[in-house]
Each structure stands twice: as C-alpha cells, then as structure tokens.
C-alpha cells in the first residue's frame, strides 16, 4: 500500500474554537513527521472556519486540509466519518491522531472501521520505534485502570491511528514565518451519511479556573463522606487560587461535575501541586496526575495505595486535617497582607 508519509491530526473545533487537545496534538504530529521525514497536516472540518485554518498554519504545520460545508457546522457522526474517510482513502497518511474527546472517541473508530486500519485508544505516550525493520508508531495505553501500560503497534496497515488524551502532549508555540499551505476541499455527502443528525449543541463552560490549567489542584475522594460535601475543599481551594477536582466516587456523590473528574476516564492534569483528601489511590485515578510535580495525600487508612504515589503523606482523618490547613494558610495570608 502506498502511503503519503504524512502525519495527520483531526483539528477539532466547536463553535469556531479549536479544542486544546487538537493544538497539543498538532505539536506532536509535527514532531513525529520530522522523525519520519514526512509532512504534518491538520484536517479541519466545519462551516466558515477559515480563521482556524490560519491559526493552525501559525503553529507551523505543513498543510491544512480544509473541508467546509454548512451541513458540517456541528459535529455529525456519519457525515464527518464520510468526509474524513474519503480524504484518508485518497492520501493514506502514515499516522493519524485524534484528541480523545467525547467526539474524537467516536469519530476515530468510525474512520478506522471505514478505512480498515488499526486504532489505539487513550494513548498516554507516542513514539516512533523500529518494528521488524521499519519505523512504526508505538502507542502506549493504560489498561486495567492504568496500572498496566500496553504498547500497541499497527504494523501492516495505514494510517496508524491513535486517540490521545488532553494534557499528554504540549501545546506548540506559534512560529515566526509560517509557510504552511491551506488545501480547500469539498465533502461528497450522500443522504445516507446524514441519518444521524446533530440538531443542537449545548455548551456550559465551567465557571472559574479549568482543572487542567490550574497550577494548584485540591482534590477529594469518597473519604470526604465524613464531612458530607466539598465545601471545606472549595474554601481551601480559594485560599490557594486552586481548582477543585475529584475521584469517580466524588462524581457519583454529586460533589464535583463531570468536567472536574481526574483519572483515565476524566482529566489528565499536570499541576505544580496536588493536594488529595480522602482518596484511596485507585489506579484509574492516580493515572490522571502522574505528571503532577508534587503530591500531598491525606487519608486515614495508612495502608491506602495513595501513600505509595505521593510526595508527602498525612495519615489522619480529613475532618481533623482540613481545618489545620485552612488555619495555617489563612494565618499566612494575614501575615502577607500586613
């Protein structure tokens, strides 16, 4: 099979804004393309998104395949699959990356099934390694909640596809003299591609600092049951200009919104400091903050696995510890304001 040696990224946009993970992956694609001696390209689909094509070019990508159509304004599972699969069939890039967003996790397998290639989900690491004498993409994925990482290769088919979580790659800088090319294309859509119709998109962006952008994160788990809610953690967070996150049990208790779930099925975060209260340390949660610089864990059970993955551990009841933190930090604030 002849391939174009290109490394592609699906540049996902919602309401005319690029998703952060797509921009992060653009940087990764340029890096992999360089290693592969090929070109990097973004695939941008939407209506009136020329400005975003320019934005993608500004990061230094070699090409933007731009597909615009009024029917593609919102994400449409069938139509996006058809438009992108046609393009993939025509060019057969070597590698294609998609952000592991709630939409990317649907579009990627749909395209992979159409073009009959291999796909690896929720990758936490991507690199090019020698495989049977050929350079291939090796994608690492967390399995069984994240304690075990499995390296996956797609040796014979192309593109080698992967979905990648937000926060795994770093956002590239804009380059001074971008020279990429915008290639305008039309989608060949049939009625059958529009059987599933997205009729409305409702977005409720969170108030305050997004979890993944905060330097300090205060997080809680089921152990907060002793207190009954997250009010003291929110107070602590406001003392520290921190964002509040939590575990899946905390989400299930209704203490945090879905957008503030940390872990393999939630956000991957890399704050300078994470303060964890009443979380035992299940793998799928721990995998969400492997890149945190310093981790402080508070749990009353000294056997809790969280103490194996923290820098500083406090074995005590959250009810006793949180008031101490609040007192100490407020005292400190009092001093500095004098």
């Amino acid at each position, binding site marked *: 099979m002849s391939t174009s040696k290109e490394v592609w990224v699906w540049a996902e946009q919602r309401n005319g804004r690029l998703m952060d993970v797509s921009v992060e992956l653009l940087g990764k694609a340029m890096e992999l393309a360089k290693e592969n001696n090929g070109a990097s390209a973004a695939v941008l689909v939407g209506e009136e998104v020329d400005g975003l094509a320019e934005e993608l070019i500004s990061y230094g990508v070699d090409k933007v395949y731009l597909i615009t159509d009024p029917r593609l304004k*919102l994400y449409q*599972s069938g139509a996006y699959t058809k438009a992108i699969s046609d393009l993939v069939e025509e060019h057969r890039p070597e590698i294609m990356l998609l952000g592991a*967003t*709630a939409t990317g*996790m*649907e579009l*990627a*397998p*749909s395209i*992979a*099934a159409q073009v*009959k*290639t*291999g*796909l690896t*989900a*929720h990758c936490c690491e991507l690199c090019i390694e020698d495989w049977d004498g050929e350079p291939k993409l*090796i994608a690492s994925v*967390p399995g*069984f909640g994240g*304690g*075990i*990482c*499995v*390296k*996956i*290769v*797609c040796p*014979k088919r192309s593109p080698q596809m992967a979905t990648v979580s937000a926060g795994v790659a770093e956002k590239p800088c804009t380059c001074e003299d971008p020279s990429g090319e915008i290639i305008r294309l039309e989608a060949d859509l049939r009625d059958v591609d529009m*059987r*599933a119709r997205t*009729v*409305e*998109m*409702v*977005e409720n962006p969170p108030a305050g600092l997004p979890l993944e952008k905060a330097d*300090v994160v205060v997080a809680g788990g089921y152990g907060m049951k002793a207190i009954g809610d997250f009010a003291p953690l929110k107070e602590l967070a406001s003392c*520290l200009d921190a964002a509040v996150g939590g575990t899946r049990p905390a989400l299930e208790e209704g203490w945090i919104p879905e*957008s503030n779930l940390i872990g393999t099925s939630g956000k991957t975060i890399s704050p300078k*400091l994470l303060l964890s209260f009443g979380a035992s340390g*299940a793998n*799928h949660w*721990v995998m969400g903050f*492997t890149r945190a*610089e*310093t*981790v402080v864990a508070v749990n009353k059970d000294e056997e809790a696995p969280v*103490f*194996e*993955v*923290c820098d*500083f*551990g*406090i*074995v*005590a009841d959250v009810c006793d510890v949180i008031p*101490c933190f609040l007192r*100490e*930090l407020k005292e*400190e604030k009092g001093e500095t304001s004098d």
Partner: protein
Amino acid sequence: MPLNIVVCVKQVADPDYFNEITIDPASGRIRREKVPSILNPMDENALEEALRIRERFSGKVTTVSMGPPQAKEVLDWALILGADEAILLCDKAFAGADSLATAYALAGAIEKLGEVALVLCGNAAADGDTHQVGPQLAELLGMPHATYVRQIDFKDDETLTLTRAIEYGHLTIEMGLPALVAVLAEINVPRQPTAEGIMTLLEKEYKEWQADDIGVPAANLGLDGSPTRVAGMYEQKIERRQKVLTGTPEEMVKAVIAELRNEGLL
C-alpha cells in the same frame, strides 16, 4: 410495534480489583488469578435500557457476547435480569481479536439474527476502556450511531432523540432506526435480579456460535483480522518521595506547609 433489540456485552475483570492486577516478570503475562469477573458495568446499563424499551414497545432482547466458554456466566446473568435470548460467540478463531476484529464477529452475529431495530452497547469496557467496538460495529453494519448517550427518547416509532454528552455540555441527536446506541452509566439504574428471573433461566434460549456459523471471512477475525498488535507491556511505576509524616494533625500539616514553602509551591 415490536422492536428487536440486541445488547452487546462483555465479561471483564471486576474494576474494584484492578489494583491487584500485575505482570508476571517471568512470562511477561498478565496475572489476575484472584480477580473475579463480572458483566461490564456499562453493558448492564445498556441491558437495562433495552429491557425498559421492550416493556414499552414489546419485542425481543437478545444479548450477544464474544469470549471464552466462561463468558457464559455474564450471559446467564443477563438472562436472569430479563433478556430473552443469549448468544456466545466462542471459537479459537476469535481469539486475540482487537476492537476491529471483535466488531466483525459481532456484526456477523447481528446480521445472522436479522431484523434488528436497535443495537445497544455500553460506552466502554472497564478493562480495555477503548470505546471503540460500538462505533466500529455500527460502521460495519452500516447503521447510524451515537456514543456517550445519557438519554434515549422515541420521537416516533422509528426515530430516536438522543442526548449525548460532550465536554461541558451535550448534543441532541436524531436518528432513524435501525441504529446503534452506546450508553453511559448515568442513563439508568440497572434492576436487581429476582427469584423469578433465576427460575426462568433454564427456559431461556442460550446458543453458542462458532466462526463458521456467522459467515465472516476468517481473515477478518481473531488475531489474523486484527490490524493492531501488542508490542509490549509494562507496569506503570510512579516514583515519588513517599514521605509519610508523623505527629498530630496540626504538626503534620505544619510540616507539609513548611516543605511546600521551601519548594516555593506556596
């Protein structure tokens, strides 16, 4: 209007025991001896949704799984909960399948069943967590589909209105039947088994199909049909200082704050 519904299910290691799964250093294989197996939690939500739709429209609920002989356990569980019929795709030819080869086998079974109006799946399996089989199965069946679905409504007898989660919001999607829908845990609370369910288990139809029964070319099944390969495995080790403090809560908090100040973090 009776609706025939297929629910795709998977037997998985119980997520509550994931911390006990390790890699055997000698063989490089996964060790999970003491880990119990269960019906994948989100598949139980898919089954619950199917049972509720059947209660509303009448019809038949068939559960299909691909797996080793012991995967019959989760199909029995589905029958006890209320499914009408269960099919296990069990054959050495299916072994080593990645998500695409799994989707081929399930698609073959669903095509053989025929006249299926709705295929329901859990959004993801707790073990592999790929989210991939649902959309791949739908594409192979040529059905419109949606994943991350937290609400299914019927606009009319042949059209679904779905609420589908995205980051910080949702999409409203309309699609005609036949279709495939992959559901999130929040869509419903699965029912508990009843004594009646257990007693009717033996009257329910249970079948095992092999590769020859579903008419899918061997080249699309199992390891041969899988575009991906496992290139290696490693246990994720996190290196941190693990400095566990002692003293009263107040002393420990003071000590931590001193350390964090020292590092310029506060």
